[in-house]
């Protein structure tokens, strides 16, 4: 019996994927999560080159693990995101501010903006988090949490609330993730020494693109309406 694809099942997929991506950026992978990833299915021919490439690389890397793979991955995380073992002190810095501020510094305007968005959504950042709120792991986690809100609203039959939370995700994707993830991924591909982190880069880029396309489809009416209102406002001004 074929399973039905529904907006709700897609929401589950989005939650799970954002959770996985966020976890992989948050810190080095551990044995437990690596074992979890071995149960993963790796889809191909999804229609997005980066998603396909990401899953293929994950599949080939995870199918050929050996006893030091965990160490290799932990070392590569430090190389890619912290800049350890690189002579130029360079890395794929995981904070949006670095990629969007003229001086490539952390804690710039982007951080203030995302912090305001988190607060507006009723979220506050953990006191133990000290890597900047515009860290890719937090931005992906924000998308996961908002997708959970949408799923809960769909379950409760609250269509308006579901739409509103989806709009928040759409704006966040367009204004933030889509604006700097491609640059981050370019850097990841430059510095990564394992296919695992190359896969992560490809999958992140591809998934963010696909998610934006999905939201644009689902929210076409709302986006048009919002655009019309904005046009009227600008005409009035």
């Amino acid at each position: 019996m074929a399973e039905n694809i529904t907006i709700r099942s897609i929401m589950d997929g989005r939650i799970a994927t954002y959770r996985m991506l966020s976890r992989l950026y948050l810190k080095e992978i551990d044995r437990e999560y690596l074992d979890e990833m071995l149960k993963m299915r790796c889809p191909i021919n999804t229609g997005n080159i980066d998603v396909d490439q990401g899953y293929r690389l994950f599949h080939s890397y995870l199918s050929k693990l050996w006893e030091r793979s965990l160490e290799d991955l932990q070392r590569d995380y430090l190389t890619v995101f912290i800049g350890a073992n690189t002579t130029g002190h360079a890395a794929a810095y995981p904070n949006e501010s670095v990629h969007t501020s003229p001086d490539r510094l952390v804690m710039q305007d982007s951080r203030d903006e995302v912090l305001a968005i988190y607060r507006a959504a009723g979220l506050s950042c953990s006191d133990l988090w000290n890597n900047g709120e515009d860290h890719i792991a937090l931005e992906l986690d924000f998308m996961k949490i908002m997708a959970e809100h949408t799923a809960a609203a769909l379950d409760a039959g609250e269509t308006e609330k579901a739409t509103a939370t989806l709009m928040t995700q759409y704006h966040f994707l367009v204004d933030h993730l889509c604006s700097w993830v491609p640059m981050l991924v370019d850097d990841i591909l430059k510095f990564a020494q394992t296919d695992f982190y190359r896969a992560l880069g490809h999958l992140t880029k591809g998934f963010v693109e696909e998610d934006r396309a999905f939201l644009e489809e689902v929210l076409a009416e709302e986006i048009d309406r919002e655009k019309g209102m904005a046009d009227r406002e600008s005409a009035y001004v």
Partner: protein
Amino acid sequence: MDIRDLVAEEDLFDPFEEEEEEEELAEEGAEDEEEVLVIGKPLEEKPNLPKIDLRTPQERINDLIKSMPGQKRVLLRLIDYCRSPRTGEEMDARTEELREYNFSVFSPVVFRELLENAGAIEYLEPADPEADDAAAGDAAAAGDAAAGDGAAAGDAAAVADALPQDGAAAAENAATCAAATSAAAAAADVQPHDAAAADEENVKHETLMSGDEEMQLDYLEIEENEPGLWVATEDGLAVVDAQDDLQQVAELLDKEPRYLDIYHQILDYCTIDGGRSAKELDNLVNDSPLLQAPRRYSGYFIGRLEREGAIEWAGGWVTTDTGKKILATSTEQAAMAAAEA
């Protein structure tokens, strides 16, 4: 007399003349770039060749053991443990067990690397189930991706029609999401993926329904990877088999006949279950007149006995089987000597 008459006109400083010389030098340098002066040149040109280790594997293993006297037993036991092939996990567990009373800053992985580099153990790669994976990058799957998605993807509006629950795995769902949305947004422009045909035989399919339309999800499952195995080399086992603790302890005792009684006292004292503490051994021998000049303490004897395998630390100093044999031999000899007397 005018002092200027004493100065030869030719010797006068002419800044322009020097400039010309510099220019000439620069021109020469440009013409013949090989003659650039180098400072810090080594006295003898030595080719930078990789070092070749001329030692035999057994020499390398013995050198490794000598370089880590504190870990001698751990290294030998690890080699011995690999008489039959072991997985990395088994090796980790065994190393941790051996390190319980023998602290080392080296992790189990480092122990394995040291033994592997010395030629004492070797890694047997698991059989490669996907030898043809290398072809993945070159394979072309023209049209597959686009065709699959074109047929499969319902538009997102259709997707939104029905609302049943689905708790599938992240990867699967990500693909579902990607596939479902790509039809309207991107599928038409998708370039066929180069590697799409690579694992064609391993690709699995699942049919999903998007409204009334069927769509096919292609996916690969991560194959369970059989771990490689560590096994001792012939040279490694030869070094282990050549170890004769009994002989080495006997040689130690022969070297210091003056302290024979002290050694025997310690060996005898440590035969008790649970062993003896360092304090107890201090109390046992430190006041002995034999140790007053030169002044020796129990640690001197403990270290030597441990190195040769007569005692070991297991929460307390315990006499090993080798130590007990030495003790038994000496007791027999003493009894025979007494009988003769």
